[in-house]
């Protein structure tokens, strides 16, 4: 294991430091065309984002399809290599680690996938699936792999006797639990979950959300959760980043963000969520955004939201607003933020 030598005696300073930190993270996917496969452009999936995640924190990234949230998840887990920028895990730069040096770190950073059907090998019994991390990392857990797997199955609320069953014998929710058991096998420190409940039915979704919460407690986990469901995000998160077209437009503690969103995009996003409350049907004011999200191949210049923003002015088309801490622990990238008591940002 590559964990730092001083790991057992964690100091307070280390507790406060970020478990994982990204600076200026960029991922462009080249578009090639023509006979020579020359690069003619790039999908700017993630285009310069910065954030840090504290130990035992649940940090969520929300946004609509194409905003770059899943790419961010794959960068954090180093399933993708960033075009530029820096990813630091426990103080170590992992941005461009090759497969070999990265492998031991994969124990510490694990991923939960969205689709419990395609993320489990249908030809392997559950015991083999959940035991795979031990095999791959060459670890023999105390008491043997079988016992470790059965303990993991019990920890995620499955019957340990079902060790020899195949994925098709389980329901969607149970399969997601199998995936989670596999994730936990090597006692990771960071779990990146890409839409962990969006493929599940409401009642099953609640079971899995409760399970994730219990496991965080039990295994001292740090979560980065990628989701599009704003209700789920509010429920699970300590802090939330809102992404739009490859950029973070707002980042704040969950309650601040939901209580008083500042970026117009966040405001519009929140006003669009259908709420299961008939009494508020009439009184809610909904901000309808016109049109679709622009293509990340040629995003609008300056503020990327200006083409759909009802507050946009000239400056929004010419000058990109930086992500700044306008209120304590509340970062916004906007020239004309909502819910902001002070002067408009550009006049300060």
């Amino acid at each position, binding site marked *: 294991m590559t964990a730092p030598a001083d790991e057992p005696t964690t100091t307070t300073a280390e507790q406060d430091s970020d478990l994982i930190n990204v600076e200026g993270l960029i991922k462009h996917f080249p578009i090639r065309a023509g006979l020579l496969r020359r690069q003619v452009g790039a999908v700017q999936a993630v285009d310069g984002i910065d954030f840090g995640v504290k130990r035992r924190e649940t940090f969520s990234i929300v946004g*609509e*399809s194409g905003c770059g949230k899943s790419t961010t998840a794959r960068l954090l887990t180093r399933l993708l290599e960033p075009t530029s920028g820096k990813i630091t895990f426990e103080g170590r730069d992992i941005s461009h680690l090759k497969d070999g040096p990265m492998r031991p770190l994969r124990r510490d950073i694990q991923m939960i996938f969205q689709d419990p059907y395609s993320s489990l090998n249908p030809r392997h019994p559950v015991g083999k699936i959940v035991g795979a991390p031990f095999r791959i990392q060459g670890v023999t857990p105390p008491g043997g792999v079988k016992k470790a797997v059965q303990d993991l199955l019990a920890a995620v609320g499955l019957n340990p006797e079902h060790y020899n069953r195949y994925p098709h014998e389980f*329901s*969607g*929710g*149970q399969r997601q639990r199998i995936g989670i058991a596999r994730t936990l096998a090597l006692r990771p420190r960071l779990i990146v979950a890409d839409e962990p409940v969006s493929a599940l*039915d*409401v*009642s*099953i*979704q*609640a*079971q899995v*959300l*409760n399970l994730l*919460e219990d496991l965080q407690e039990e295994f001292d986990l740090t979560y980065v959760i990628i989701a*599009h469901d*704003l*209700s*789920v995000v*509010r*429920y*699970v998160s300590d802090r939330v980043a809102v992404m739009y077209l490859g950029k973070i437009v707002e980042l704040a503690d969950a*309650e601040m963000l*939901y*209580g008083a969103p500042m970026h117009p995009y966040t405001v*519009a*996003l*929140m*006003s*669009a*969520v*259908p*709420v*299961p*409350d*008939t*009494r*508020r*049907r009439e009184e809610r004011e*909904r901000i*309808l*955004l016109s*049109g*679709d*999200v622009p293509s990340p191949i040629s995003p609008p210049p300056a503020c990327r939201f200006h083409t759909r923003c009802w507050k946009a002015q000239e400056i929004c088309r010419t000058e990109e607003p930086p992500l700044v801490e306008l209120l304590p622990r509340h970062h916004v990238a906007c020239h004309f933020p909502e819910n902001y008591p002070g002067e408009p940002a550009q006049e300060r």
Partner: protein
Amino acid sequence: MQTVSNLRERRLPTGSEGGVGMTTSALRDLANRHPDRVDKQPFLEVVDLRVHFPTDDGLVKSVDGLSFALDRGKTLGIVGESGSGKSVTSLAIMGLHTRPASEQTRPGAQLSGEIYLEGDELLAKTPEYVRGLRGKRMAMIFQDPLSAMNPYYTVGHQIIEAYQIHNPVNKKAARKHAIDMLGRVGIPEPSRRVDAYPHQFSGGMRQRAMIAMALSCDPDLLIADEPTTALDVTVQAQILDLIRDLQREFNSSVVLITHDLGVVAELADDVLVMYAGRAMEYGSADQLFNRPAHPYTWGLLGSMPRFDRARSERLLAITGSPPSLINVPPGCPFHPRCAYAARNGGLSEEVRPELVPVEPGHIVACHLSETDREQIWEHEIAPKL
């Protein structure tokens, strides 16, 4: 009329349990909600609908004794999880199930019960007759517009085709109508977009185009099966607004099928909660959200993280998973997952509860006594939602 009874005999025995009589009386009770329209027949009425699929593993009872009614210009939300029978119900109304050619040869859906569209019983009609109704009298919006549209034809072509089948107009007029409809649903530059292929549209635009297609013949009944599930939340808001506006404009009746209680609360007048192919609870949106009476509805509401409130406690998840539709539990299908099934001395395990009124217009299929129900709701559920 003779054909109806013949067909019913040939298909399945009906009313074996959960008698038709009780259901209709509950329906009558619903109709009595508005005293001024006691005599009026509902626009759409489904009575004791059963849709069963024979498979190698056994008979899949996707819908098993479902009844509901819908008035003109109203929106009914059908809520349930996967496998609850909501989509199968909508396909049955649209007449889109493959029926067995004869008893034994080709497997298909076995349908029984009655579906009335303004008094016209659809299940007894020939497929040709029902085909004539599709598009003009009733239309459907599917969840995934990419697979619902033909990728080989332009969007315009597909709208024009449907319009020309039902209206004696020439191609030019039909094309003009298609452009009109595309503009109505908010597609920019409709006169250019009419010649685009489905893949050239974004997800939200495709869904709009499908709504344009569904509404092109001004149908009286619009069935929207998870119309916004595949869409982002801001696009979802646009589409829901669009459905609401168009419904007001055309005075259509809408059946909105969804798993998202938020969407139902936004759009529906009445709500039907389905579980394992049966109605668990039925009432106005206000009743369902503010005074839900069935433990399953409580579970659904408790399972949803709330967007509009700070988190308080853990989610009230329902334990277990939905049953197999081949082996639906006897009695109340929800009893193995119900926290309150033990309260009525084994009744839930043995006897299928019938839909009974709990207040005017609000019916529920549950064995809990009224006092128990009110007490549980008030003290155990409501404070935690």
